[in-house]
């Protein structure tokens, strides 16, 4: 891995990380009397320790590549890929690589409530700061705990632990800073983009920090794995100030972009308004005759009867239709009518 030059992920197809036949059973080891199919859990009995070590690990250099998701334009990443156990490889309909800048931009444009795997976020963080996270706050920092468990109680110096963390997390996206707190035996990792933090959170939870050259490597599954959670705000006043400055900088950048966009729109609007004026002077009445409009109405009603729960909606309908009205520019709706009239 070290000496060879590895091809960029765009130049190869994604690898199958685990063969389907090698995947372990999805039923967890028996800890109770009866198995609850709905929650995929054993009930009645001592629930036992839920923590475990993930036997698979994502190797970004080896595993990432082009999958079907890239070709279809899917914007979300494969959760199984992040955990190192996707058995579909290039056939997977989700993306199989480490999130990069352009992916982030696409995701941010698309939605504010879904994380990079397409899961819904919540209003508040969970009490234990685990899980998908909150849509109210941009959080790019992860808390890393459970370090002794993930090292199977192996004694390492502070800098060795930091170095291992740096190596593991550095592969999963552009790092902003890493800080290992010796007195609390935990670490904080900030990424440049939030979606890298989301990705790294899934990729690194329940992983071991041992490396094959350690003598504990064979017994790694007996450990407990890393605890990766969202971090709270840094209480250090300097860090707070820095965060504030950063967000202000971002806000100013966005302001400039907004202004540009607005100017463009205004120009367009002006042009459109002129066009509309011209049109109005040419033909003062509506574009369609009354007969045509009633025809459309009838057609809509028939469709609505056919599908009881399904409503088809023209993305834009004016006063003639009765159903929901999203706001869209009038031009689009005209095109819609024209195409439907062609069919008849």
């Amino acid at each position, binding site marked *: *891995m*070290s000496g060879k030059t590895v091809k960029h992920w765009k130049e190869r197809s994604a690898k199958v990380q685990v063969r389907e036949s090698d995947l372990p059973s999805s039923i967890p080891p028996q800890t109770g009397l009866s198995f609850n199919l709905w929650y995929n859990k054993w009930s009645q009995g001592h629930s036992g320790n839920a923590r475990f070590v993930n036997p698979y690990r994502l190797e970004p*250099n080896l595993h990432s590549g082009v999958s079907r998701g890239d070709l*279809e334009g*899917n914007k979300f990443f494969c959760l199984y890929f992040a955990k190192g156990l996707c058995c579909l490889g290039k056939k997977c*309909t989700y993306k199989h690589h480490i999130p990069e800048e352009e992916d982030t931009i696409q995701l941010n*444009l*698309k*939605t*504010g*409530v879904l994380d990079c795997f397409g899961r819904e976020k*919540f*209003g508040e963080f969970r009490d234990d700061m685990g899980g998908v996270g909150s*849509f*109210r*706050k*941009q959080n790019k920092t992860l808390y890393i705990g459970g370090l002794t468990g993930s090292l199977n109680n192996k004694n390492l*110096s*502070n*800098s*060795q632990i*930091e*170095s291992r963390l*740096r*190596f593991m997390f*550095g592969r999963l996206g552009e*790092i*902003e*800073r*890493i*800080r290992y*707190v*010796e*007195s609390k035996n935990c670490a904080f990792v*900030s990424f440049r983009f939030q979606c890298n933090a989301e990705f790294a959170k899934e990729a690194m939870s329940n992983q071991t920090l041992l490396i094959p050259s350690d003598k504990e490597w064979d017994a790694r599954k007996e450990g407990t794995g890393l605890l990766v959670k969202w971090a709270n705000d840094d209480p250090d006043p*300097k860090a707070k100030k*820095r965060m504030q*400055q950063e967000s*202000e900088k971002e*806000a*100013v950048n*966005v*302001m400039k972009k*907004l*202004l540009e966009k*607005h100017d463009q729109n205004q120009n367009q609007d002006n042009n459109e308004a002129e066009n509309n004026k011209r049109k109005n002077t040419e033909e003062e009445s509506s574009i369609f005759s009354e007969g045509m409009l009633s025809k459309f109405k009838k057609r809509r009603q028939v469709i609505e009867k056919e599908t009881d*729960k*399904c*409503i*088809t*909606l*023209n*993305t834009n309908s004016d006063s003639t239709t009765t159903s*929901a*009205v*999203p706001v*869209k520019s009038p031009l*689009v709706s005209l*095109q*819609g009518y024209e195409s439907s009239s062609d069919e008849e």
Partner: protein
Amino acid sequence: MSEDLFNICDQCLGDSKNVRMIKVPSGLECKICTYPFTVYKFKTSNRASNITKTLICKRCSDQRNICQCCMLDMTWHIPVNLRDQIISLINNGSSGTIVTKEAKNDIMKRYISLKDIKLGGAEFTSDPKKVQELLDNLKEELTTGSNKSIIRESTQKSTSITEKNSKYESVNITNLISKLPLSNSISESSEPTKSFFIYNIDPSIPEWKVRNRISEIINLKDWQDTSSNSLIINHKSRCGGIRFKSADLGNKFVSSLQETGKVFTSSECLIRGIIDIDQNQIFVIPWHSGFSTASFGDNIGENVKLSSRLEKFIRKERIGKDSILIDQQLPLTTSKRQLKSNKENKKKNKKPKRIPNLQL
């Protein structure tokens, strides 16, 4: 029948002319107010793999002027927090900071959602007239540069002085210092190396900026040694190390620094490279012996001590090099002068004594 309508932005609806939707009355719990609401599910095109659905109720989306699917602002298509921040920056002080307050407990959430009000910045962005007004204001401020926020952008860099941390005064770091290549000098004639020591790193500089800047300097993205940590920055000790894939790349790095004149000679006639990022300068020394994470201190005490020692070292090194520093600070003083003149114009300058201090 307001529940029959929905607030979905154009981006979520997609480009297709006809969108087929499924309506589920009381299908989900609103993520903001916890009331049940009418859910609409749709695909942007027939072949799209993901179903988009509304996640919050129409009332909540109206109050915040956000899309029910993506929860971004309907007019500007940005997150709520960012929108509020921008509006309060533009309005600067005239109406205080604008925040969309969110309730913590369920009763309050429901109570707020039933009110017929606009929350936070929604008041502005839901009204095209006010949006126009805001943007006009913004334009004016950007062109004249009279606004505080814009000036703050240029004066952001603050050369913070290491705190007097007497707690760590007694920490012994001679062992660490002796391993640092402080007596080396950067030049093409010296034997090639792939490791470099970097210092004078402001804590506000993130690692990725350094990484990208180095890629820019040597004009190659793939310079990192993937088998180990190729870039370590210890923000507490304000120094770090770079490791290139090969000594050739290290050589290339040195020569491109020298070609662009990004070097300086210290008071002891040692040559240092300079990587500049924004308004900060990071100094570079070749490091023949290589480094590990432990080279920058093993605990917080060592880190802080190392940073203060390096700062003293830099000050000593920069004696007689103040010309560069002055150059560096020139834009700052001008902007502060600008600020001063602004203040004088307003005739609200209550603390004239502070201005000479600023200019220092």
